[in-house]
């Protein structure tokens, strides 16, 4: 296990959190975990917890599942959400979400793990 993976747990390992990484040198932020900053190459990026609030950037309602185990869930909504920390995440969401909706994240079980699930913020 890399140190980056040890220091935080998030939805990809079953903890109800969306996390991201940030560069202490150039201040850029990104979602997909790695051991360096993809913008400036600096090592030891910081791991941060996202607020889980954002705006829907794109949406699709999936009717044809990629694997047999997902079939019982169709149709399910997949969204790209621009979260307030300045990065984009892929997640599930309420079926009627539209582009531009203000949303916040909860978590739901899916295919043996959990996934972020966005609903309209009240």
């Amino acid at each position, binding site marked *: 296990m890399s140190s980056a993976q040890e220091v935080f747990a998030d939805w990809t390992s079953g903890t109800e959190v969306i996390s991201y990484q940030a560069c202490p040198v150039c201040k850029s932020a990104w*979602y*997909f975990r790695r051991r360096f900053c993809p913008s400036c190459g600096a090592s030891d990026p910081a791991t941060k917890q996202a607020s889980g609030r954002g705006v829907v950037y794109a949406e699709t*309602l999936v*009717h044809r599942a990629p*694997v047999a185990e997902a079939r019982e869930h169709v149709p*399910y909504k997949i969204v790209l959400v621009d979260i307030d920390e300045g990065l*984009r995440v892929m997640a599930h969401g309420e079926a009627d979400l539209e582009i531009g909706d203000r949303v916040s994240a909860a978590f739901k079980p899916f295919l043996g793990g959990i996934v972020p699930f966005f609903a309209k913020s009240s």
Partner: protein
Amino acid sequence: MSFITGAGLTSFGKHEGRSTLDLMSMAAESALADAGLARRDIDGILCGYSTVQPHIMLATVFAEHFGIQPQYAHAVQVGGGTGMAMAMLAHILVTTGVAKNILVVAGENRLTGQTRDAAVQSLAQVGHPVFEVPLGPTIPAYYGLVASRYMHEHGVTEEDLAVLAVLMREHALMHPGAQFHDPITVAEVMASKPIATPLKLLDCCPVSDGGAAFIVSRDDTSKHGVKVIGTGQAHTHQYVTTAPALSDLGAAPALARASEERGIAIRDVRYAAIYDSFTITLAMLLEDLGLAKRGEAAARARNGDFGIMGALPLNTHGGLLSYGHCGVGGAMAHLVETHLQMTGRAGQRQVKDASLALLHGDGGVLSSHVSMFLEQVR
């Protein structure tokens, strides 16, 4: 300088009992015959990949099977952009003297060599294994996301996209090798079953068996070579989650690099061969490349501009949407058809003027782009 001296294409659809190597061999044999070359004339081989028959050395496996001992050979992997990337590389290798005649070949029994579920599942793996694939996306879902945003920003409708599916089907009806032979209407596209909104079944290319090949040569060995006069690539991201803004995707920079050497203007293009994995892919690429104004690809199609008798004939074999999509060979069919058109051998599909063609392929989720210009030899 390089020429495409020969091209070969199998029919797409079901080829029961044919393996990846069988389909590659069928296409390679007909490309060789078209170029008037024998196996011993081929000193380079580039091939794509096969999801049904993954191998760490597919080019060598094929060379041995087909009976060639090339001095240069390897496989290339750029997803749907592989065919055009191989054409570009072959052009560079021939131009720089590494080889004289390069056989570019791909084929796959993607339809009958595996279950449909296996095909859908293996393709979905282009997503991020940790942050995307666990959400259960499919390739249509990745493109459905892109489509939702593009339609939102540019006022494109589902009917607009359907028009492009109908156009590709009209063209396929005139090609005996196409997978589909029944005409479709906009209403039928709209009524086809939802796959990943806004994309419906008839917005999506099928899974096919098939093979395609072409020969890229230093000399115009055949009487029907066409000249490669510009190539360019751009790679902006791999995953849809990390894609840049729609206005910063790779089609335009790839095109600019391909245009550079000869200063080619887009208005001079007479024939277009554009990647069309989904109707949204085709609409976006046509507009990103400047072949239609923003949001107006469907309007040009409705006007007949992209038809065989139109001002800018497009994918006259039916494209991935209706000729079919067998993986790497799918987009190579666009190049084979372009070659036929530019050499006046497209039969009932022959366009009036294909003197300058633009070809464009993309891989991933609009991640990797390859543009190429071909010019008729006078």
